[in-house]
């Protein structure tokens, strides 16, 4: 998902106290929550810092494709909604950086890693937003997929992450609904509007399915994350839930999902989808998607242009502090 690029196996540490490890697993198994200052295996801490920071980066970079349409939204109502949604995504990033900081990572260091191209974020935000319909498709599909992934994270074993996800999930639902409303308006509009909606769906459908990460057969880190109850469902399970929820919505819109192999399994009722292009996924994660360079360049530019504000705030705070001391 937003952390689909995680690919190292956490290395079990023989040096760590076996008894502490066993107690830790017992706490996890009994659905106890782990808090910031509790003892935890180093690999648990490392896995969480990577997952939470990748998730945070995804929220922050995720503002860019949609932010590009704020000034071009077709009405004041749409503009206000999009602005509020993008502001929420910024907040999600901040909640998540704060959760990562409880594990002794610093937000500044994490953001620097992102800007240096050393950190990963979700592949989905490396695709361009070419028309207004893309804003509808993102809200409906991308936020829809994110919700599917984030709801089980509200029960993650690490307390600060779970609490951040509860706040995030409360805010997400409006994101998906405003996107679906945009799609609905276009799909019920003129032939050109409907074609625009169909075109956006064609381009966003497969990348949305890739958001859930590699198939279970080659997802390396899932087992340990599942044992630690960081992860509650496998990538393929979540992907299937998403497809099953979305197919009827596309039918309602009168739009066609761009998958000739899509069919409903008579026994399970699940919608079976065609082959996902995992090579494309690997390329986008590796930095070779259509917008990877752009996204990092925009992030760096915003950071550099904000430097004077940070410096001014620091100087003002220092002066106030020295006045109080005098």
């Amino acid at each position: 998902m937003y952390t689909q690029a995680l690919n190292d196996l956490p290395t079990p540490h023989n040096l760590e106290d076996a008894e502490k490890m066993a107690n830790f697993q017992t706490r996890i198994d009994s659905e106890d929550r782990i808090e910031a200052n509790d003892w935890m295996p180093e690999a648990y801490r490392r896995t969480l810092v990577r997952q939470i920071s990748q998730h945070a980066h995804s929220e922050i970079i995720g503002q860019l494709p949609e932010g590009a349409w704020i000034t071009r939204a077709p009405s004041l109502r749409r503009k206000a909604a999009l602005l509020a949604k993008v502001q929420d995504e910024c907040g999600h990033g901040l909640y998540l950086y704060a959760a990562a900081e409880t594990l002794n990572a610093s937000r500044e260091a994490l953001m620097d890693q992102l800007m240096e191209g050393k950190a990963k974020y979700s592949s989905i935000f490396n695709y361009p937003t070419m028309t207004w319909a893309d804003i509808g498709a993102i809200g409906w599909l991308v936020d829809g997929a994110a919700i599917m992934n984030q709801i089980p994270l509200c029960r993650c074993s690490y307390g600060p992450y779970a609490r951040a996800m509860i706040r995030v999930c409360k805010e997400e639902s409006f994101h998906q609904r405003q996107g679906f409303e945009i799609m609905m308006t276009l799909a019920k509009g003129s032939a050109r509007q409907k074609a625009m909606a169909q075109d956006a769906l064609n381009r966003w459908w497969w990348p949305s399915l890739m958001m859930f990460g590699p198939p279970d057969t080659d997802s390396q880190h899932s087992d340990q994350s599942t044992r630690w109850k960081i992860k509650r469902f496998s990538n393929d399970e979540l992907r299937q839930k998403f497809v099953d929820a979305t197919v009827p919505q596309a039918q309602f819109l009168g739009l066609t999902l761009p998958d000739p192999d899509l069919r409903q399994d008579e026994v399970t009722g699940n919608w079976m989808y065609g082959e996902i292009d995992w090579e494309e996924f690997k390329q986008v994660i590796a930095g070779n998607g259509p917008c990877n360079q752009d996204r990092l360049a925009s992030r760096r530019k915003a950071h550099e242009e904000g430097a004077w504000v940070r410096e001014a705030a620091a100087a003002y705070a220092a002066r106030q502090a020295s006045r109080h001391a005098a």
Partner: protein
Amino acid sequence: MNKTLKATPPVQLWEVFIRSRSGLAHKHVGSLHAEDAELALQAARNLFTRRGEGLSIWVVPSHLIVASDPSEKGMLFEPALSKAYRHPTFYNVPEEVGHM
């Protein structure tokens, strides 16, 4: 890519507490970074109260919070469990006495 930037200097961390309704206590909602108290309050308002979540905000520099040590959890809190006589259910009141 991989161009090394100057490390971003750290900004002070604050803990945020919000009173959601009159009559309720302020409750911890999260943390944020800000250079001073005024900016911390503004950031807390933007970050945590965009949907009517609060009527009052407290911000406290994180380093000023003194916390109990989780490794002393047993010593600090377990004795309470062995003192059942501190709870009303420890005492038998015959049924005919009625509610007490």
